[in-house]
């Protein structure tokens, strides 16, 4: 994209540096002059919000690791020590814990934007797949982080999630013991989760760099889904989108700060303030809210399917609900990117969003009565959307006419 840069080394020092390591040129091309569609709405600010959230989590996490002890006898107390004794520890621990929730909130909005505006379609498949891999790694990181305080919910989350691997035929149990480092979740498990919880965010950061690289080859999608045709369709990233992103980050920080300052524990579960006890499972265990939809899918399969028993079935659907995201660019057969111009797709899309929220609700509901039936229906629609709606809807749908360019769509609205 060097043709977009207007960079001319001004001083002798800049010229000397530019001939050896052109970092200033690179920053100017990619962070300042990068041509960006001029019609991006606020849903496009969540990428920047997520980048900031990753930094917040890494910085607070490194600080917490300075005071935390990964040993089953001391972990619980060391977290309480951080909250009560360490200078400012109350705020730093709360920022990290609430930060995980805010991270996922932004992540889900970012992904919802992507599904509506068809940002996963050619030529952005690799960009999208890297995004899904980031999502999977962030889930793994969040799960292992949740185990570290070694409360009741930590322990039983670790037990339930590692047990998922035991459902794999033949090699399941050896894998389970390999993951736990014992016959049950115990000190070796806590130690390795701490090690990996420290490592994975940096792997995520590396993938984010690839994600942005893959973004800067085709450039941003936009709300119309129409390709950029000329320089009239774009504005430079700086100052237009640096300012827009900054404003969005500030707005996003308001609820974040409100949670941290006033209700830091509301997103957690009271049982996690009871130290882990391997003999008693809390009466009602639920994962953190951001895992609820997938948890609902996991337990919706309570019946055997042919030779597959109910446990393996649940695990297959649970894993499938995430793996299926990797295939979305090829499942969706519609040549039109943006949902704005697809009259039928919109209905299925919004039903999918409502269905996803319903799955989250059902994941927290007790596994009995009407909830069991509803969980099966919502699980069915989740897969129906990806496997039937995306591939086959385009056969029956007549998209509305697309604007010829981004400029036309913007000006068409502004003029009477």
């Amino acid at each position: 994209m060097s043709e977009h840069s207007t960079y001319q080394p001004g001083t002798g020092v800049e010229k000397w540096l530019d001939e050896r390591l052109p970092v200033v040129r690179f920053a100017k091309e990619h962070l300042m002059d990068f041509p960006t569609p001029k019609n991006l709405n606020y849903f496009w600010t969540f990428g920047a919000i997520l980048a900031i959230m990753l930094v917040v989590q890494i910085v607070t996490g490194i600080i917490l690791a300075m005071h935390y002890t990964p040993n089953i006898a001391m972990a619980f107390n060391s977290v309480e020590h951080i909250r009560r004794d360490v200078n400012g520890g109350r705020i730093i621990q709360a920022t990290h814990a609430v930060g995980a929730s805010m991270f996922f909130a932004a992540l889900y909005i970012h992904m919802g934007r992507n599904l509506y505006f068809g940002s996963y379609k050619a030529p952005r498949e690799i960009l999208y797949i890297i995004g899904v891999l980031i999502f999977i790694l962030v889930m793994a990181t969040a799960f292992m982080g949740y185990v570290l305080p070694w409360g009741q919910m930590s322990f039983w989350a670790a037990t339930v999630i590692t047990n998922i691997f035991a459902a794999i035929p033949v090699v399941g149990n050896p894998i389970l013991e390999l993951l736990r480092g014992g016959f049950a979740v115990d000190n070796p498990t806590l130690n390795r989760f701490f090690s990996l919880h420290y490592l994975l965010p940096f792997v995520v950061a590396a993938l984010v760099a690839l994600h942005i690289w893959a973004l800067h080859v085709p450039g941003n999608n936009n709300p119309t889904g129409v390709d950029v045709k000329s320089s009239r369709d774009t504005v430079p990233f700086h100052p237009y989108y640096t300012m827009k992103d900054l404003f969005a980050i500030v707005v996003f920080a308001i609820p974040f700060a409100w949670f941290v300052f006033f209700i830091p524990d509301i997103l957690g579960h009271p049982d996690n303030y009871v130290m882990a006890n391997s003999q008693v499972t809390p009466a009602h265990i639920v994962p953190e809210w951001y895992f609820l939809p997938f948890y609902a899918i996991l337990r919706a399969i309570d019946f055997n399917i042919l030779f597959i028993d109910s446990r393996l079935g649940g695990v297959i659907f649970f894993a499938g609900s995430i793996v299926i995201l990797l295939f979305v660019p090829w499942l969706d057969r519609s040549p039109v990117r943006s949902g704005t111009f697809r009259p039928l797709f919109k209905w299925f899309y919004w039903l999918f969003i409502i269905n996803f929220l319903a799955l989250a609700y059902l994941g927290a509901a007790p596994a009995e009565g009407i909830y069991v039936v509803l969980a099966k229906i919502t699980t069915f629609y989740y897969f129906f959307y990806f496997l039937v709606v995306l591939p086959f809807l385009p056969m029956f749908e007549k998209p509305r006419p697309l604007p010829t360019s981004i400029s036309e769509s913007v000006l068409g609205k502004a003029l009477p």
Partner: protein
Amino acid sequence: MATGAVGAVGAAAVAWPLINQLNPDASTLALASIEFNLTGIEEGQAVTIMWRGLPVFVRHRTPAEIEEARAVPLADLKDPETDEQRTQEGHEQWLIMIANCTHLGCVPVGQSGDFDGWFCPCHGSHYDTAGRIRKGPAPKNLVLPPYNFVSDTLVQIG
């Protein structure tokens, strides 16, 4: 080709210890066997003890509970096993099982559920008075650890 093959073997030889260190260590494997005294457990009572880091249920069943378990036809069971197969002869009142639900490993709550045995609060599996799965997502009956009666009141697990 040969160089590549030797290189692959070498890489695997280096990788294996790096993976194998994750497996249960010697101190974990050492806790293989325990003895437990049954005298304190009244009829109808159940306790949870620890074996190899796993919780184990020891339940002193009432005659009514044993009768209830024996009356179930095998055709009604998801994982068919008779009550006799789940206990030891002469000690039918003692039900000794690993206390992790065979679904995803939670500890079920005793004396509850639709079949008077156990109910797992995590995902709603019901077990009967012989610890057999009757309803819900769990695929198997609660697992029996290897154990034998040293005397009428002393049991060795493992």
